[in-house]
């Protein structure tokens, strides 16, 4: 698989290193002198092409016609959009991935400019922080499906509402499953009859809304969880 990357800033470089480590064939296009100096220390020379990514001639020489994926990681949203559009309409690149710099431009990163996947760093970070704030003691262990679902862990505190209630009688949110309970260091696979005890660590697979509801469910009696609605 050949991946063309436009822009050798931190995002582009990180992506390139990741792909090189997985034996992908890559080519990174960059024109800034100082950035190139750094790139040459980090990437194999044959994976670097010096020139402006927005110059169709440079794209062609860097191999856009045989690229399966174009990843645009420049710091200009207009460049990233124009590149994805050009890649699809002129060179039939099957898949385009674009970095969003300014969250206000996010609405443009779709079919309008033939962007297949848009990565909004600011958005991902903001929603992570927001989630951490709203979920109290709940910890996210793993993100599934680009963050729509996650595996979360929560310790049952003293005075929790659900103490003494069997799982089947709790109002477990719709898109949420309790996958395991860690009780005194031992993993238990719960059934509907299982009753939670203080200090149990509950592992659940849930969507965002479910995580917030679960956090409320497990909260101690008269304590509100920040951010609950």
């Amino acid at each position, binding site marked *: 698989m050949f991946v063309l990357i436009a822009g050798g800033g931190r995002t582009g470089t990180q992506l390139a290193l990741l792909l090189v480590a997985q034996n992908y064939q890559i080519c990174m296009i960059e024109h800034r002198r100082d950035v190139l100096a750094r790139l040459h220390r980090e990437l194999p020379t044959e994976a670097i092409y010096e020139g*402006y990514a*927005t*110059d*169709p001639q440079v794209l062609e020489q860097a191999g856009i016609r045989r690229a399966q994926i174009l990843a645009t990681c420049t710091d*200009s*949203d*207009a*460049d990233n*959009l*124009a*590149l994805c*559009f*050009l890649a699809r*309409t*002129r060179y039939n690149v099957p898949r385009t991935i674009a970095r969003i710099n*300014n969250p*206000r*431009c996010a*609405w*443009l990163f779709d079919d*309008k*400019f033939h962007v297949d996947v848009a990565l909004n760093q600011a958005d991902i970070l903001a929603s992570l922080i927001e989630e951490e704030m709203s979920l109290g003691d709940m910890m996210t262990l793993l993100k599934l499906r680009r963050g729509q679902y996650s595996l979360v862990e929560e310790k049952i505190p003293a005075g929790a509402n659900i103490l003494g209630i069997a799982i089947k009688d709790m109002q477990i949110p719709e898109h949420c499953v309790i996958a395991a309970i860690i009780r005194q260091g031992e993993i238990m696979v719960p059934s509907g009859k299982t009753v939670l005890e203080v200090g149990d660590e509950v592992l659940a697979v849930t969507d965002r809304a479910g995580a917030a509801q679960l956090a409320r469910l497990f909260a101690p009696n008269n304590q509100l969880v920040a951010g609950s609605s």
Partner: protein
Amino acid sequence: MNVIVVGCGRVGAQLAYRLVQRGHQVTVVDQAATAFDNLPPDFHGRTVEGDVLSQGVLHRAGIERVEGLAAVTNADSLNAVVAHLARTTYGVANVVVRNYDPRWQSLQEAFGLQVVSSSTWAAQRLEELLYGSEIRTVFSAGNGEVEIYELEIPTTWEGHTLQELLFEAQCLPVALTRAGQAVLPAYDTLLKECDVVHASATLEGIQTVHRRLYPQKED
């Protein structure tokens, strides 16, 4: 006409001012408020400060109600992206794009946009003017790839035909003016001194014709 001008540099400010002078409703958008200093004091169109790729800014500029948009910033990909958006998402009827750096012209053309390249056009005009004053450009099509030239027939060509003058040059006759009377020219018309011929030609074509009319000036 309701028009948005994106970019308030030298070109944008002048374009916006001209449109306002002709009675059009103009909104100028630029991300830097200081750019609006380029507008003459008596400019009375609207100005909107902000990133033109933000939906809020576009709507504030009234993109849903305009008939024309000119993207004239000095960032070529930005011009192309804004113009494409105006045309496809908002259905703006007249969309034109300025090309700033000739290297990115083909990127802009990939969007199927009308591109005006001031630097290419100026370089071409300057080149023509350097070749002499016997031939004047009177009309320029596209970005000057084809232009209509005015040629004065010198004594040396009296009695020859247009066929001989334009033979296999990239040049077509448009009009022949003799003593103030213009006619549609025929290739076999015999030329007279002081005839004025208007011809449509590429730069290469007009150079060929120029060499034929004034051979002595070539060495």
